[in-house]
C-alpha cells in the first residue's frame, strides 16, 4: 500500500490543479446582482401612482437583499421616469436593455406606455426580456401576440368593468354612462364597460372624455353636463385621480349624487385626498356614493399575512404611502421574488416562462391563491369592491343601500 501512496497523492494533486479552474467556470457567479428595470411616472399628473408602486416594490427588494438576496444574488431595482407618456417609456426600455443590460422588466406603469413598449419585447425576443406584472389592466399584453412576453398578476380592466357593470345591473342601475381618458387606457376601460353591458343586451347611454394629463383644477363641466343630459343611474370613470376627482366635483356641484365608480388604476387614496382637501375648502362632502374597484385586497385587513408584512416594512421604511397601489407594488415584488427563487441557483432568463407557468395555487399571503399558466386568466385575477367610509376606502359589505 505505501508503495502506491506517492503516485496516488500526485494523481490527486494533479486532479485538483486541473479540476479547480474547470469547476470554477461551471460554478455560477454568485455576486452579480439581478438587474430589474422599472419605468413609471415619477413626475406629472400621475406621479403618485409611480411613487406608490416604487415604494411598495422597494421595501420588498430591500428586505430580500438584507436577508442575502435570491440564491445569493442581490436584487437591483432601477427606476426611470416616463411621465406617463409612451415615447419616454420606449426610450427607457431601450436604455434598460441596451445600456443597463437588465435581466427583466418589471411593473411598468400605464396602458398607453405599456402598449407602446410591447413591440420592443418582441424585438428583444432573443435576449429573453420579459415584462413582469405591468401596472395596467389593459388587453394588449394579455392577448396574442404579446402575451407571451408579459406576465400579469392583477385582474384586467375587462374584469373590473364587467364586474362593476354586473353589480350595477344587480341593483337595478341600468343606465350607465362612461367618463374616460382619451387614450388607450380610457378606451380599454370603455371597451370593458361596453362588453359588460352587451352581455345584458344594453349599451353605454352617454360617454365623455378628457385629455391625459388634465389637472383637478381644470373644468370638466362640459363633460359632466353632457353625461347628465342622458340621466344616468351610475357613471363608471376610467381615468386618473385628478380627472376623476374633477368629474366627481362637477357632478356633485351640478346636484347629481348618483353612483360614481372608478377602477383600480385611479389611485384611490390620491383621489380621496383631492376630494377631502377641496371639500374642506368649500365646506362640502364630496366623498359619498363613490365605489372603487380594486385588484388587491385592503391593506388594512391585518388578518392577511401579506398585509402585516407590508405594514411592517412600510413602517420600517418610515413611508406614509399606504395605498392600494403601493400594496399592489408590494405584492408584485413578492411574486417576482418567489419566481426568481423558483428559478433556482442557475437563473436562466430563457427558462422564465416555464418557471412562471409552474407556479400554481401559490400563496403570497392574501388568502387568495395565485396561479400562472392560463393564457386568458390573470394570476390573481380577482376584483375587490371598496367605498369611502371615514375618509378611507374600505371593502363593501352590502350593495343594498345603493339599490335603485
Amino acid at each position: 500500500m505505501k508503495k502506491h501512496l506517492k503516485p496516488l497523492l500526485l494523481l490527486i494533486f494533479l486532479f485538483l490543479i486541473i479540476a479547480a479552474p474547470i469547476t470554477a467556470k461551471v460554478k455560477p457567479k454568485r455576486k452579480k446582482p439581478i438587474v430589474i428595470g422599472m419605468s413609471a411616472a415619477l413626475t406629472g399628473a400621475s406621479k403618485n401612482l409611480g411613487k406608490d408602486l416604487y415604494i411598495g416594490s422597494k421595501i420588498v427588494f430591500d428586505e430580500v437583499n438584507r436577508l442575502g438576496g435570491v440564491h445569493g444574488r442581490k436584487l437591483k431595482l432601477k427606476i426611470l421616469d416616463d411621465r406617463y407618456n409612451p415615447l419616454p417609456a420606449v426610450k427607457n426600455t431601450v436604455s434598460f436593455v441596451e445600456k443597463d443590460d437588465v435581466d427583466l422588466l418589471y411593473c411598468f406603469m400605464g396602458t398607453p406606455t405599456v402598449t407602446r413598449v410591447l413591440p420592443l419585447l418582441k424585438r428583444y425576443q432573443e435576449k429573453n426580456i420579459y415584462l413582469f406584472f405591468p401596472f395596467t389592466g389593459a388587453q394588449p399584453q394579455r392577448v396574442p401576440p404579446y402575451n407571451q412576453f408579459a406576465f400579469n398578476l392583477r385582474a384586467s380592466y375587462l374584469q373590473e368593468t364587467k364586474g362593476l357593470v354586473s353589480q350595477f345591473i344587480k341593483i337595478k342601475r341600468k343606465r350607465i354612462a362612461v367618463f374616460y381618458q382619451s387614450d388607450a387606457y380610457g378606451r380599454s376601460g370603455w371597451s370593458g364597460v361596453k362588453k359588460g353591458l352587451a352581455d345584458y343586451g344594453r349599451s353605454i347611454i352617454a360617454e365623455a372624455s378628457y385629455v391625459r394629463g388634465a389637472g383637478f383644477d381644470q373644468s370638466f363641466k362640459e363633460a359632466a353636463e353632457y353625461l347628465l343630459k342622458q340621466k344616468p343611474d351610475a357613471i363608471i370613470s376610467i381615468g386618473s385621480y385628478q380627472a376623476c376627482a374633477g368629474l366627481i366635483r362637477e357632478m356633485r356641484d351640478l346636484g347629481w349624487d348618483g353612483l360614481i365608480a372608478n377602477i383600480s388604476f385611479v389611485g384611490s387614496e390620491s383621489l380621496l385626498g383631492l376630494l377631502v382637501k377641496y371639500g374642506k375648502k368649500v365646506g362640502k362632502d364630496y366623498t359619498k356614493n363613490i365605489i372603487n374597484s380594486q385588484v388587491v385586497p385592503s391593506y388594512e385587513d391585518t388578518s392577511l399575512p401579506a398585509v402585516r408584512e407590508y405594514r411592517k416594512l412600510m413602517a420600517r421604511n418610515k413611508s406614509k404611502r399606504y395605498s392600494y397601489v403601493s400594496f399592489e407594488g408590494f405584492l408584485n415584488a413578492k411574486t417576482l421574488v418567489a419566481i426568481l427563487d423558483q428559478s433556482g441557483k442557475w437563473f436562466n432568463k430563457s427558462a422564465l416562462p416555464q418557471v412562471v407557468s409552474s407556479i400554481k395555487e401559490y400563496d403570497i399571503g392574501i388568502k387568495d391563491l395565485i396561479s400562472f399558466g392560463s393564457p386568458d386568466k390573470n394570476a390573481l385575477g380577482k376584483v375587490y369592491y371598496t367605498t369611502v367610509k371615514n375618509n378611507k376606502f374600505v371593502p363593501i359589505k352590502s350593495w343594498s343601500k345603493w339599490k335603485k
Partner: protein
Amino acid sequence: MKMSKLIRQMLGISVGIFIFIVISISIFFSWTLYTNIMLEYQNKGISVAQSIADSGVDLILNRDESTIQSLVNQYYKNINGVAYIAVRNSKRELISHTFVPYPPEELSEFHEPIINKRFSESMTIQFINVKNMGKVLDISAPILAGEVGFVHVGMDTRPILSVIYKTIGKTLLIILLIFIFSVIMNYIFMRRIAKPLQALTEYADKLAKHTFDAPLEIQKDIKLLVEVSKNEISNLANAFINLEDQLILYIKNLQETTSAKEKMESELNIARSIQMSMLPKLMKKIPGYEMYGYLSPAKEVGGDFYDYYLLKKRNSIYFAIGDVSGKGVPAALFMAMTMMLLNSLARQIDSPSAVITEVNRELCERNEHSLFVTLFFGVLDLRTGMIEYCNAGHLPPYLVSDKGQVEELALTDGMALGVDPDFEYETKTAELSKNTTVFVYSDGVTEAENSAREQFGHELLEKVLKDNSKLNPKDLCEKVFTDINSFAEEVPQFDDISILALRKNI
C-alpha cells in the same frame, strides 16, 4: 415752395404704386398660398387616413380597441394640422377617436351618408364647419371597402390661415421697409435734383432782372453745380451759364453798336446840316424876279440838290437841280462834289454847255463807284429874260404862266453826268415871260407813291401847277410839297424831293 411740390408729387405717386403693389401682392399671395397649403394639408390628411385604413384592417379584426386608440393618438399627437381622427367598426360604431369631451353632432350627421354607402371604394373629401374647430377638411376613408370599418381624419384649416397671415404679414413688412427705404432714397435723390433746379430757377429769375453788364454772383454757385454732377442738370446749368455769357457779350455788342449808331446818327445829322447849309441861301431881292428852292431828302442826307447863284458881272442867275443815283451818304457826297464843281465852274466859264461838259469830265475822273447824276442847268439873263439851259438826263422843267398854261421845256439830248467823260453837251434857249414861273423838279415828286402804289405822276403835278399858277415861288413850292404829302398819306418818302421855282414878275 417749388421743391416740396415736386416731392409731394413723388410721394403721391410712390404711395399710389405702393398701395397697388400691396393689394395685388396680398391678393395673389393669399390665393396662391391658400390653394397650395390647402393641397398639402389635403395630401397629408389623405396619407394619414390611408395609413390608418391600411393598418386598421388587422387592428380592427385581430386586436382590441385600446391598441387602435393608441395608434390614433400617435398620429393625432405627432402630425400637426390634424383636428381629429375617428375610427369606426363594421357596425359603424365609433371605437376610437380623439374628440374631447364628446364627438360633435354636426360631424356625426355629416358622416352618415358617407358611412352608409354599401360598397365604398374611394375616399370622400369635403369641407365641414365644426363648432370649436372652425372649417375642417374631412377625409373619410373606408377600411376594406367599408366592410371592416371607416376612418375619418379632419385637417384643421386654421393653421393655414395663420401661416398665410404670418407670411403675408412678413412680406408686407418687408415691402413696407423697402418702401420706406426707397422713399428716403427718392427724397434724397429728389433733393439732389430739386436743389440745383431751385438754384437754376433763382438764376433764371435773376437773369430776367439782369442788366447784363457782368456775370451774376450766383453764376459761381451754378458753376460749382456743374462740377458736382454730370447729368442733365449739369447740362441745363451749363446752358444757362452759356446763355448769360452770350447775352452779356451780345448786349455789350449791342451797346457798342448802338452807341456807334448813335454816333453815326449824330454824324449823319451833322452831315445833313452841312448838306443843307450847302444849299444856297435865300437870295437877296432881285427886282422883278423871285426864286425859291426846296429840298427834302428821303434819308438824313440825300442825293438831290438845287443851286442858284447870281453871276453879277454877267447879270445873270444860274440855277440848277440835280439828282444823284442812289440815296443816302454816297449820293450826298457825290452831290456835294457835283454841286461844288458846278458852282465853281459856272462862275468861271460863260458857256453853259462848256460848264456842263467840263463838270461831266471832272466827275468821270473821280467816279470809282460809277455814280451818275441827272442835272438841269439854266442860266437866266436878267435883262432879256432868256434862259439858256442844258438838260443832262433830267426831267424837263415846266413853264407855268399865271393864266394856267403849263408846258415842258424841250430836252437838249444830254445824258446824265458821270457816264461818258467825252460827251459834248449842247444847250437850248427859252423865254421867261411876265408872270411866268419856271418850275424845276426831281423825280421824287412824280414818283411819290401812296398806299395803293399809285404815283403822284405828271398829271397831278401839272394840275397843281395849273391851279396855283398865280402863287409866288415860295407858296407854289410849299403847295406842291403839301399836295405830295397828302397824296402819299402814310407812306414814307421814298426818294429825295427837290423843287426849284423861279418867277419873272415884270
